[in-house]
């Protein structure tokens, strides 16, 4: 087994990987930019190396530096996490050339699946169903002709893309030109490549994906599906396992197709096959993510398999520990991505210092977090600062636990997506499982809880603090300084409150 793993990432996923290594007795090496010296992943690792300025292209995207650090630290493996260099075939190849194990698939598999056109060609030969679409590199005029043939609505997608960047739905032929231009502009900015292609838009479709595990000895299994239809601008916000839209028969069918897709590129490690699932139970290959997925914890909770530890075992050349028939799904798990974004202001990215933090705990609650009280959230990196995962015997229990946990969560100092998630958990359509990928377009502003009484409380508290400040002209007395309960409020309130009791 590996002696020391370098984690080429930051934030919650770096912490997640460090924990998996510690639970296998493997030493860990963190890397950090100037913005992350005190980040949790640095403090949880056994060793930590500085790799450059905050901008990712000068630090976390510098494969050369990462390999240098791995050599210097004597690491025998690198785990890339997700994002950054996780799906960079060149980096995976450079790691291999440096005689260091890459905890992920081969460069060849990354490359085959990273190029969407190649990916479609490879999997279609394995019998995987595709959404009808065009080749890439067509000129706008040819795309327009193809669009007419496929039929509207149509989806414009970046050839080099991922994560919904550069993606556009066009419902009307008249909007195709502007849609193509916008998609090309975003694609160029995001990937340095403005090539786009078209796909027929599947209406009322769900985004359902299959988690697979494959070793280098020819064994490949799937761990069931994840439902990821709650998206905003093609960015997933909430995921669950299993999906209300998938029964045992469909799971088996989609699982078999996912395994075939992975085997089409001789896949090794954990990976995810994303599908569109229409309301008739037809499903279409979207893409394969050749890496650990943000939402992997929901699968872990329902199957009991620690996916990160399995990736480490596989990279060490071991055979898969479990067979398909050993995979049993039990209970229900839901994940909310906690992002530094303001849901009341169009999900504007937020930055600032976290002045107060309390994470929920208790039964059925798992938190994967990269933040702490005092941490400065910058705009250099992805706005996802934590993940909250609730597990229950049933979907209803998972939703109720999630509500309870969201209510306990306290992040002060910057706006987060928590109010969005609270509103979503209260949404009857979400509770009934009636949604598709366009749910948030048609339900953009789930009503926030009626807050007449809350407004009144806010008014009272502000007046009390103003009064206390004015009267004493000193800092507000802190309940936690000295004895609990030292405040004029306390004494008066207790007098009032006690009268009825004693």
């Amino acid at each position: 087994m590996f002696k020391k793993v370098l984690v080429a990432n930051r934030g919650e996923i770096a912490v997640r990987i460090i924990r998996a290594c510690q639970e296998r007795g493997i030493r860990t090496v963190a890397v950090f930019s100037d913005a992350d010296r005190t980040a949790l992943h640095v403090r949880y690792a056994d060793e930590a190396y500085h790799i450059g300025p905050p901008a990712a292209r000068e630090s976390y995207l510098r494969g050369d530096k990462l390999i240098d650090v791995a050599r210097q630290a004597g690491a025998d493996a690198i785990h890339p996490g997700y994002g950054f260099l996780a799906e960079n075939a060149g980096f995976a190849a450079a790691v291999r050339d440096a005689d260091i194990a890459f905890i992920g698939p081969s460069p060849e598999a990354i490359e085959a699946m990273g190029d969407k056109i190649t990916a479609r060609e490879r999997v279609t030969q394995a019998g995987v169903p595709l959404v009808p679409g065009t080749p890439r590199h067509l000129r706008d005029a040819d795309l327009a002709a193809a669009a007419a043939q496929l039929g509207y609505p149509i989806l414009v997608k970046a050839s080099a893309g991922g994560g919904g960047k550069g993606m556009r739905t066009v419902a009307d032929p008249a909007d195709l030109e502007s849609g193509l231009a916008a998609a090309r502009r975003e694609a160029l900015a995001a990937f340095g490549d403005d090539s786009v292609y078209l796909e027929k838009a599947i209406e009322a479709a769900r985004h359902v994906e299959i988690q697979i595990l494959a070793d280098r000895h020819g064994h490949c299994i799937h761990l069931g599906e994840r439902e990821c239809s709650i998206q905003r601008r093609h960015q997933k916000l909430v995921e669950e396992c299993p999906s209300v839209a998938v029964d045992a028969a469909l799971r088996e069918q989609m699982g078999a197709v996912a395994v075939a897709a992975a085997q089409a590129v001789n896949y090794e490690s954990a990976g995810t096959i994303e599908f569109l699932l229409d309301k008739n139970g037809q499903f279409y290959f979207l893409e394969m993510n050749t890496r650990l997925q943000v939402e992997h914890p929901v699968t872990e909770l329902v199957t009991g398999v620690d996916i990160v530890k399995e990736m480490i075992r596989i990279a060490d050349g071991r055979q898969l520990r479990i067979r398909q028939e050993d995979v049993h799904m039990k209970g229900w798990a839901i994940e909310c991505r906690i992002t530094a974004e303001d849901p009341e202001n169009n999900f504007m990215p937020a930055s600032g210092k976290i002045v107060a933090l309390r994470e929920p705990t208790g039964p059925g609650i798992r938190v994967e977090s990269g933040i702490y009280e005092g941490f400065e959230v910058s705009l250099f990196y992805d706005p996802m600062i934590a993940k909250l995962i609730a597990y229950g015997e049933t979907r209803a229990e998972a939703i109720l636990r999630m509500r309870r946990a969201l209510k306990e969560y306290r992040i002060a100092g910057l706006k987060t997506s928590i109010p969005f998630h609270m509103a979503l958990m209260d949404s009857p359509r979400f509770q009934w499982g009636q949604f598709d990928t366009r749910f948030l377009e048609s339900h953009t502003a789930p009503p926030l809880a009626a807050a007449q009484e809350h407004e009144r409380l806010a008014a009272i508290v502000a007046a009390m603090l103003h009064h206390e400040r004015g009267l004493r002209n000193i800092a507000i007395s802190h309940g936690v300084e000295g004895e609990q309960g030292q405040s004029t409020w306390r004494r008066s309130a207790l007098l009032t409150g006690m009268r009825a009791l004693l």
Partner: protein
Amino acid sequence: MKYQTQIDHKTYQIEIEDTGALSIDGQAIAADLLQVGPLGLYSLLMDNASVELVVEETQQGYRVTLGSRTFDVRVADERELRLSGGRAALAAPTGVMTIKAPIPGLVVRVLVRAGEEIVEKQPLVILEAMKMENELRAPRSGVITAVNIKPGESVEQGAALLVLE
């Protein structure tokens, strides 16, 4: 001591006596407020209802978060009310206001021109950041008196984009 507090367009009259007795709009309540933990987290018991709030001081007053909602509260005491003749003390901010970039990014579109009259929450600028397009909206109604940016420009966080009067 009497206080007038305002949240959006709603006003509350709150009176706090020297004994600590408290009333809101004439209704007496038992309120017990204590800070918990080192920072702006408070526990309130109001007539035995237990609520946890986060309070941050702002230039205009207090920002109170409870449950999933955040309220910006302005407070004026008796003296301030007398000096300003009642409600005026809590009137919405007027005068010149600079619209700043809340995040660094690329200006994709400018949706208003100098001299244009705008209404609260109207989209003003599309700023691309984190590879996503973000819409800046008007914090209040008024007239745009200056536009300091044009599409294609990169701006730093806090850069003055527009002036609103």
